[in-house]
Each structure stands twice: as structure tokens, then as C-alpha cells.
């Protein structure tokens, strides 16, 4: 594997990943260049900044040991097969069909980057199909390249709204994900003020009176999440959009995709821009590395021209009956417009978009409806059972919930104590949101999906009963 050969006085490895690391080949290439010492090629680097010492890094390591080393480290983790988990909060445990991994392991998709349509037709077509299926899911005509996650997509959406309206204020619900709020604030600093809108303490629903009070001619957009971070469904979607539009503001809706098997798509209740998290569409959680998002808008030139990311349009070719694909308005992104784009883009999350296209193709229209129903029923059952425990309430809000819900533990034990005790029984409890939402008291955010069987939920309830007794 790693042979040591000597060139001059330095010992240089012949590396398995580097075909030209063979000394004879190097010598031959240097001769062609008319160069004696390879260091001459680095003439641009001033001598005084060249690193003279060996980096304090490991020595070259054979594959067998690399594998042992890393497998050893990874075995210190407890993954979802080894531990029952009820965490969601922006990254959710769903079943990933084997076909999804089969396709995203295809080395052509895995190792391609940004070739043109002539070499990468399949990549273009898969992306167009991703855009199309998301478009049908959310009822929007324009869908762009995928981006990093729901949070950054909502940041992009706010930038779009500011550019379209020329206004500098974004209204967001107080129930929104703190993780996403933090990102929106980073994205909007020196661009727009981010103002929270209250919620109804009983139902959790966005307080329309407060919205009407705070919205003004300064408001660029009203942003909502549906289902909300706290798991319930925002039922006044249409009314909120109307209020935004009556005040000349845009309406941005962030969504969790599987819920749309049951919920009215935002394109049908007035959304101008839609963003959301794609990870539930066939992508493993990967410690959060499985996140990716979609960004969509109305088919309006003004909107399309401010989408920060690349986007694919279907087209024809010189041959009758052949589909072609091309980038839409390629001059609008930073690649051509530099700072005039006022937004940035780049390496996206296309492997996940292709995976999502596979997942949506497998589900089909009936599948997503059934899946959403199964998830909702399981969550409903879990809420019922947990609520039967003395002193425990799930959910806090009187509204329909999809797959996540708040669980309030009264005052005897903190969520952190409950979770520590659950962990002793091999259960990872819901996310502790006592710091994020102190007004909700001793509360955690739980998530139940199709992966949770009745026995899993019953086990959770039994252990919880024991803990809070």
C-alpha cells in the first residue's frame, strides 16, 4: 500500500490516491517542464511564509486502520436503532426506503458537481423532477435549486421580500423555531427588523389582532410556519395571508412537507414565497447533516429575478421529442452579478434533492396522504396516552397537531431530570424547551412518526409514569 521511496534526501510516500506520486513519473514530468526541483513550481509563494516543519498530524494510515479507528469512534454514539427517540424540532426520525440510499449512493450522482446538461443530463432532469414534485406538493409554479436548510431558506425568502417590496421589516410568529429565528436574524441584520407576533395562549394560533396592530407600510413580509415549531397546525393560513396582502406585504409560509399529505398547500392559501425542510423526504438525520430545503415563489418575473439560487427550466433540443434543460435567468445569481445579487448561493444540497425526488416518486399521491394520516394518528394516540399520566399535559395548546406536540410535566420535575431518567431506560425524550419558551413552564417538545410502533409509545408512557410518580 504505502511504499516509501527516496527522491534526493526526502522520503516521499507513493500514495494509493495519487497516480503520479511515483518518483519516475514525477521526474519525467519535471523534465518536460524544464524544472530540476519541484519546489521551483511554488515560486509564487514568498519563502518567508513557506511552512518548513512537518505538520503535527498522523502518519499516513492504511485503510484497515482508518476503518478501525473511525468505527471505534462511531460506536461511542447511540443511534436511533439502539435507542428509542422522540426528538424532532427541525430534524425528524422517519423511515428511509432502501431505494433512496441506493440512488444517492450511485457514484455518478455522488461524485458529479456542476457539469453542463450535455454531460449531466440526468442530474438536470432529476433536479427538474424535484422542483416539479415540490411544486405540486406546495401548489407553487416556481421552485428553485435546493439550499442548506429550512432556516437559511427562510432567510433567503426575507431577502427576496425586502427586495421586492423595498420595505424593511419582517413579522414572525412568537412560536417560531428559535433555531430558525436565530438564522433569520443573522441573515436580516442591517437589512430588516424582525418583529415577533403574539399567539393565543389557549390555542397557540397566531394572534390576528396583534398582527393587525403591528403590520404597517413598513412591513415587507409576514412569515408563518405550518405546522408550527410547537407542532400544531396554523389554521388561519388564508386569513393571515389576506392581512399581509391588504397591507401591501408579502406572505411567506414555511412548511414541513409530509404534513401536506393532509394540509392545504400554501399556494392555495395565498403564499407568495414558500420554503421548508426537505429532510423528511427520504434522508437520514445524519446528526443534522441530512437537512436541506426548498424555496419556491409565484411565477412572476419580479420574484424569479430575485431568487438567490440556480433554477432549472425544461426546454427542447434540436431533436424533436427530446427534453432539454437549462438554467433560468442565469445572469441573476451572484455568479454573474457578484455583489449586485445582494444574496449568495453556491454549493447546494442537490444529492438530497435527488433523493427527495426518489422518495416522492415512491410515495405517490396516495402514499403521502396515507403516511400523513398514519403519523397524525400515532401522534394523537401518544398525546392521549401521555395526558393520562397524572400531572402531565399533552399538548398544551388546543389546536390540531401533526407529528409534534408539547408535553408539560407540571412543576415537580424539570424536563432535564425527566430526560435523564428516560435515558436510563434507553429512551431519548423530547427536546427541552424550557429555556426557549419559559412561559410554557416545564415543557418538552415531543415527536412521533411512522417509525414509532404502539409498543414504543406504550413503553414511553409506562416509563414516564414511573418517573413522574
Amino acid at each position: 500500500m504505502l511504499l516509501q521511496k527516496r527522491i534526493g534526501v526526502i522520503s516521499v510516500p507513493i500514495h494509493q490516491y495519487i497516480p503520479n506520486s511515483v518518483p519516475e513519473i514525477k521526474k519525467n514530468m519535471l523534465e518536460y517542464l524544464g524544472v530540476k526541483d519541484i519546489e521551483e513550481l511554488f515560486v509564487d509563494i514568498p519563502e518567508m511564509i513557506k511552512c518548513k516543519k512537518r505538520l503535527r498530524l498522523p502518519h499516513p494510515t492504511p485503510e484497515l486502520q482508518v476503518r478501525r479507528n473511525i468505527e471505534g469512534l462511531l460506536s461511542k454514539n447511540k443511534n436511533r436503532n439502539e435507542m428509542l427517540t422522540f426528538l424532532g424540532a427541525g430534524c425528524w426520525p422517519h423511515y428511509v426506503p432502501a431505494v433512496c440510499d441506493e440512488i444517492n449512493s450511485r457514484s455518478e450522482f455522488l461524485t458529479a458537481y456542476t457539469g453542463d446538461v450535455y454531460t449531466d443530463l440526468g442530474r438536470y432532469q432529476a433536479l427538474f423532477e424535484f422542483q416539479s414534485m415540490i411544486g405540486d406538493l406546495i401548489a407553487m409554479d416556481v421552485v428553485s435549486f435546493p439550499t442548506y436548510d429550512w432556516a437559511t431558506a427562510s432567510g433567503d425568502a426575507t431577502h427576496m421580500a425586502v427586495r421586492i417590496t423595498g420595505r424593511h421589516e419582517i413579522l414572525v410568529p412568537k412560536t417560531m423555531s428559535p433555531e430558525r429565528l436565530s438564522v433569520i436574524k443573522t441573515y436580516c441584520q442591517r437589512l430588516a427588523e424582525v418583529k415577533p407576533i403574539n399567539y393565543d395562549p389557549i390555542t397557540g394560533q397566531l394572534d390576528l389582532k396583534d398582527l393587525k396592530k403591528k403590520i404597517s407600510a413598513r412591513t415587507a413580509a409576514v412569515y408563518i410556519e405550518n405546522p408550527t415549531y410547537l407542532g400544531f397546525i396554523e389554521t388561519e393560513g388564508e386569513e393571515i395571508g389576506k392581512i399581509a396582502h391588504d397591507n401591501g406585504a408579502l406572505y411567506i409560509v414555511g412548511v414541513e412537507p409530509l404534513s401536506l399529505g393532509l394540509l392545504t398547500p400554501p399556494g392555495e392559501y395565498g403564499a407568495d414565497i414558500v420554503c421548508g425542510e426537505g429532510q423528511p423526504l427520504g434522508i437520514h438525520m445524519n446528526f443534522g447533516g441530512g437537512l436541506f430545503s426548498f424555496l419556491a415563489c409565484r411565477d412572476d418575473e419580479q420574484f424569479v429575478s430575485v431568487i438567490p439560487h440556480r433554477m432549472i427550466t425544461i426546454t427542447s433540443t434540436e431533436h424533436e421529442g427530446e427534453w432539454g434543460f437549462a438554467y433560468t435567468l442565469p445572469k441573476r445569481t451572484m455568479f454573474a452579478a457578484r455583489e449586485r445579487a445582494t444574496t449568495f448561493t453556491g454549493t447546494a444540497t442537490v444529492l438530497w434533492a435527488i433523493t427527495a425526488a426518489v422518495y416522492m416518486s415512491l410515495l405517490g399521491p396516495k402514499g403521502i396522504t396515507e403516511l400523513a394520516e398514519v403519523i397524525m394518528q400515532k401522534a394523537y394516540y401518544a398525546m392521549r396516552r401521555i395526558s393520562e399520566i397524572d400531572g402531565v399535559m399533552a399538548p398544551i395548546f388546543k389546536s390540531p397537531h401533526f407529528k409534534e406536540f408539547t408535553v408539560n410535566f407540571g412543576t415537580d420535575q424539570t424536563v432535564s431530570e425527566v430526560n435523564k431518567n428516560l435515558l436510563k431506560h434507553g429512551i431519548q425524550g423530547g427536546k427541552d424547551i424550557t429555556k426557549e419558551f419559559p412561559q410554557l413552564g416545564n415543557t418538552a417538545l415531543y415527536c412521533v412518526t411512522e417509525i414509532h410502533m404502539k409498543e414504543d409509545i406504550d413503553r414511553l408512557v409506562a416509563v414516564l409514569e414511573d418517573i413522574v410518580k
Partner: protein
Amino acid sequence: MKNKGTTTYHAVRWREPIIYELGRKGRRGFMIPKVEPEIKAVARDAVLSIPDKMRRKTPPEWPELSEPEVVRHFIRLSQQTFGVDSGINVGVGTCTMKYNPKVNEALARSPGITGLHPLQDESTVQGILEIIYKLQEWLCEISGMDKFSFQPRGGAHAVFTNACIIRAFHKYNGELDQRDEIITTVVSHPCNAAAPASAGFKIVTLYPDEKTGCINVEALKAAVSKRTAGMMITNPYDTGIFDSNIIEYINIIHEAGGLVAIDQANANCLLGRVRIGDVGADLCHFNLHKSFSTPHGSCGPGSAPVGVKEEFAKFLPIPTVEFDGSKYYLDYDRPHSIGKVAEFHGVAQNVVRAYAWILTMGAEGLRETSEVAVLNNNYLLKKLLEIRGVSLPWGKSRPFRMQDVRLSLEKLKEETGIRIDDVNRRIVDFGVQRCFTSHEPWIVPEPFTPEPTESASKEDLDRFAEIFSRISTEAYTNPEKIKNAPHNCAISRVNLNPSSDPKKWAMTWRSYIKKHG
């Protein structure tokens, strides 16, 4: 054997229908697990709790396919995609299309990483936290920086993160209102202009001297003022030139009260050779999907860790990964942090892959990587310059280039009418990936930017040059063949009109049906 090592290439041409044209009503590709009767008994009416106005009336109009149809469709699409594993990618400069080792893939796809939730109790994710922490230490050693964050998910995202850190630094010092300008260069990746603009900065763009390819020190002195917040440049530039005045720039910017952030997307040629932190840079980033071998994934997910000097560590995104001597933990208690630039902890699979790559290469392998990447590039450069119509108009005073090089086909265009876009449509007929041209503006006319990386063999480089030479000859003898290209690809020339025509463009199938029936 005659024609040894050459191929008579023809791409797979399936004429694969759009997925909406496939399938039949009633088919399905996935069986949903049924809920248990006890759940059904309690939760039968759960769905009815959704008020009518929020209940979906018709399911999405997706196609209905069986599992074999789905698999066949996407396998065919994959066959019509040209990755690093498919063949020669040495034309794709600034992208560092190096080999993506398979063992890293196997490790990154193990349940010990795929099955982790980002909010799990710290005691259950000690392994991944340790990998993140150790990779951070290694990147510090490679870069001369003091601390890294893995939250940014792409190079431009990292540049944005650094712009936010510059913003936070000046805010901390009460100087943000005054310092609103970022200086960059036109030969830096465009995200060095766009991302700070997105963070609210005005952009000052310097044009390098045509002969040296570097910025004039006097021009930089003239550009700095009390409004300077910092300098954000790529070094080496996308032209393959390492700006040797870097120490002077850093001094000038520091004297003016600004910070220097170096975009190290092109760091493949610097591994083990230049530690930008030692040179005096305050902030930097690496692209794990370039220099550190993680796969490009058809354009992401990538990973672009940001590295900073100790003084700026307090501004890094939260949480940071720390070690207290016995366990690894996430630190959210960082009051000066810029907050978050993305959810959770970045692309963990790529952290694992990059960790595996550095472990495999070792310190010696990293230096070997940069050495061969530069050797390969200069070898190919010389070969290409021997071809009629190819020239190196920029930075002529410099004999060599670093990781890539920006060449020009201006002469070819003048003499034959064949442009780089034509060549790019023809070169793919030979079973190699097309060349990257240049980001805009095109300061080099008819540009192309090869970057062989260390993964190309001498035979690959010779073959690529031979193909280029053949196309040059064709341009002078049979230009129509090039203009009508491609001939051996999955599709023929694409109609670009819908790209800029709102009446014709269709980014979704539903939109296509509406506009074109």
C-alpha cells in the same frame, strides 16, 4: 496495441421520459405501515380535527409508479450524469474534482452517523463530537488558525459567516456604522463580493495588474480608509496565481483597522506548505468538498468550516464543540457569538469523510497532495500552451501556476470563430467533463480554467491535451463539426430561449403543462 488507452465514447442516450410521463394510475412504490387497531380506535378521527379550510382537497398530482419503475428511471438518470468516477474531470477548475475515497463513503453511511439526531443527549453522541473536535484540531494545525466552526454548509455560506464575524467585531468595537466597506478582488470567487454584500457591506473591487496577476499594493493603499471593515479574497485566486503580496495586504488592512478573511477554496495546492494563520490572516475557511475529498454530491451537500484566530473565537456561530478533559460537549453560552448561520452542527457526514481522508493521507500525504496537484497543473498548462489557439494572457510574468490556471481561446476565436462555449460542447463528445470557463466578468476573453488535482494520472493529462489539440485542429479545418456539437452525448443542442422568457420558462411540470399544454 493501436489506440491503446483511448476510448470511442458515446454517452448513454435513453431519451428517458420525465417522471410525470411514466407510471399508471393505481400503481404504488411504497407500502405505508398500518396503524395498530388500538391506535386506530383512539385516533380514528384525528384527521377530522383539521378544519375544513386547512384540509387538503386533492393529493399532489404526482405520478404513480411501482418500485422497479422508480429504480430504473433514476438509475438511467444516474447513467446520464458524469461524475469524478465516470472519467476525466481535469477541465473543471476552481472545483477541485479529486477522487472521493470509497472507505470514507462506507464510514459516512454507517448507522453510527446516519441515525443520529442533532439534539440527542451529549452522552450519546460522544463519538461524533470527538471526530468534530479532532478534525477541528487538525484543521487548526493545517491552517495556523485557533478555532473552527463546522456550521457553514458551502463555501459561499462560509464567506457569509466570516462577513458576519467581521460585522460583529466592528459592532463590538462600536465602529460598525463607520466601517461599511469590504475590499475584494475581481479574481476572487464572486461569493467574496456577494456574501458580504448580503451581510450589509458595500463592496470595493480591485482589479489586479494584468502582467503579474496580483493587485497593486499602491491600489490597495488608495482603497483603504476609515470605512474599511475588512478584506475578503480568495488566495490563490481562481486564475491559479498565489498573490505574493499577501503579507503587505494584511499589514495595510490591519493598519487601517480592518480584518482579513481568506477564502481557501483553492487550498489544495497549499496543504502542508502555507499556514494562512501564520501569515497573519484573521479568518479563513476550507471547502471539505474540495481540498479534503468529500464528494460534491451533484452540487452539495458540501461543508465549509470557518477558522479564526483566538481573538475572534468569541464571535463564532453557536454552539462550538469543546472538550473538558473527560467528555466532549456543545457550548451555547457564548454571548458575543454571531448566533446561528444554519440549523444544528453542519454536515456531519462530511466531517467524518474529511477526518478519514486526513488520517489516510497523514502529514506526508497532504504535502504530496499539494505537490502533485501543482505538478499536474503545470504539466497540463505547458501541454495546452503548445496547442494552436490557446494562450495565457494574464499574469504573463509568472512562469507557473498553483492549483489551476485561467487560459484563453481568444486567438482560436479570432482565427476560426470557435468560442469556448463551442469547445465545451465538443469536448464532451470525447468522454471527458467540460471545462469551467470563468465567473463573470470575463477579464480573460474566451476563458477556460483547468484544474487536474492530484488525482489525475499522467495518461489522463496527456489524453486531455490530445483531445484539446484535436478540437483545435478541427476548429481550423472543420469548424461546423464543433458548432453543431455535441454529437456523442445524451442529447443534442439545447434551446436556451426559455431561460430568459417568462412566457416560456417552466421550472415545474405543472407550469410546463399550463404554458405549453
